[in-house]
């Protein structure tokens, strides 16, 4: 009972309190400036009925998936390689340390110059946002492999290929998963930013477009959708990790 109270009821109460506060506060401003939750809900339904919402969600998800997978496919192997090669790692480390603090958004002007308006700049920014967390966590996962794992493999005479596939990759896997999880968050945040700046479609564009029409209710509806989808990714990722953890001997 207490468990139910703290796990389900309290978050629900907090949500209700937030909505009530929002509704109350919205009363002080005209709805064009600060729409109430009811107005936003109506706007959401409007966007859903006209199909604008669904097509923009589809576009955003496609960009997000493509860029995220591309970042993973490049960053994981690169991280595995750098993790195993201290010399290359030391060589490339200062470069990464300089590039990493540059917000993906800062790349935007160049991205538009290079790729024009459309899918490419947004995809490029999401790619950058996902790339560094995956790369850095993969490197540290490989570097952090307990030496005894490798000693045992060497002692039994495992061949280098087998050591890589059966020791290094599984040993680094939980750490890589942490990076993949973080990257989902950063990539999703930057998706909206990327689409706001250079795209003609997607959730970010939908928000900017709504501002151009001064439709604050649409803006808030768009923000809400971004938030809820982000929450869904997080839950999905956590479920996936739990499932993996069970398969992985409970260390993921």
């Amino acid at each position, binding site marked *: 009972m207490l468990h139910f109270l703290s796990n389900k009821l309290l978050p629900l109460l907090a949500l209700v309190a937030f909505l009530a506060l929002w509704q109350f506060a919205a009363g002080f401003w005209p709805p064009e400036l600060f729409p109430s939750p009811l107005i936003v809900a109506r706007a959401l339904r409007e966007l859903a009925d006209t199909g604008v919402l669904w097509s923009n969600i589809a576009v955003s998800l496609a960009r997000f998936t493509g860029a995220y997978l591309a970042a993973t496919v490049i960053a994981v192997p690169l991280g595995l390689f750098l993790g195993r090669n201290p010399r290359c790692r030391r060589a490339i480390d200062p470069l990464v340390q300089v590039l990493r603090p540059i917000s993906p958004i800062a790349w935007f002007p160049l991205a538009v110059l290079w790729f024009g308006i459309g899918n490419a700049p947004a995809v490029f920014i999401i790619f950058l946002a996902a790339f560094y967390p995956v790369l850095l966590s993969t490197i540290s996962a490989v570097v952090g492999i307990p030496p005894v794992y490798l000693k045992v493999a*060497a002692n039994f005479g495992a061949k280098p290929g087998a050591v890589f596939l059966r020791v290094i990759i599984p040993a680094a896997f939980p750490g890589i998963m942490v990076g993949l999880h973080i990257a989902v968050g950063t990539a999703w945040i930057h998706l909206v930013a990327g689409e706001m700046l250079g795209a003609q479609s997607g959730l970010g564009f939908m928000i900017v477009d709504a501002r151009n029409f001064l439709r604050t209710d649409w803006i808030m509806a768009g923000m809400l959708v971004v938030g809820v989808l982000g929450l869904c990714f997080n839950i999905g990722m956590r479920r996936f990790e739990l499932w993996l953890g069970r398969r992985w*001997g409970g260390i993921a």
Partner: protein
Amino acid sequence: MTVSAKIRLDAAEKRYASPRGEDLQALAPVTLDIASGEFVCLVGPSGCGKTTLVNLMAGFEKTSAGAVTIDGRPVRGTDPDHIMIFQDYGLYPWRTVLGNVLFALEAKGIKGKEALAKATEYIELVGLTKSRDSFPHQLSGGMKQRVAIARALAVEPSVLFLDEPFGALDAFTRMYLQDELLRLWQEKRPTVVFVTHDLDEAVYLGGRVVLMAPGPGRIQKVIDVPLPWPRERLGEGLGRYRRELFEEFHLVHQQSTSDVEYEI
């Protein structure tokens, strides 16, 4: 020195360069012969070079001077015929008990049904048949070390090195595993080199006990314990060798503390 020594240390020595560039001697030249099928314990306080010595024999480290030979061949690196068992088990957490034992067999090139049969046999030998499909984190420390022992024995090595294998276990589990190890040794008869800092453990297990001393690491004394196994832990016979070892250790201890005082 007999010609038929299984492991031969001939003035084997280990030096390191310290971070400040000084030349440090971890192990003064050590000469020792270990016969095939023998159970030898290396015992001594920390810094006596016992782990360094076993690492030289197992091929994890290289000698700075002198030679280590096993079966007449110089040790150049690790060898699947000479398996090391570590204090922290070195089990793969993503593999089950069976999977961990299979890893060793697969590395040796044994596959499929044959590997499965062999793994099952050795898991049974250490009494873990019921935990065959458990993951390491579901096992106690003692069970984990039994898995590591099963994994090592499954590849049928002629030499087994153990580096403080029971150091992290509670006293009851330790005594149980000591007896288990003796049983397995008597059944399979590998040459065993067992590193410990526990004098009681050394004298209870070893056919010979090599007492080592620090600063630099060296052999202080080799004590024969010509008692049959299984031994009586509190028996008269063992008591005598125990006393001898403790008195000798007392000398080592006095030396090392006076060294420390001298340095201060």
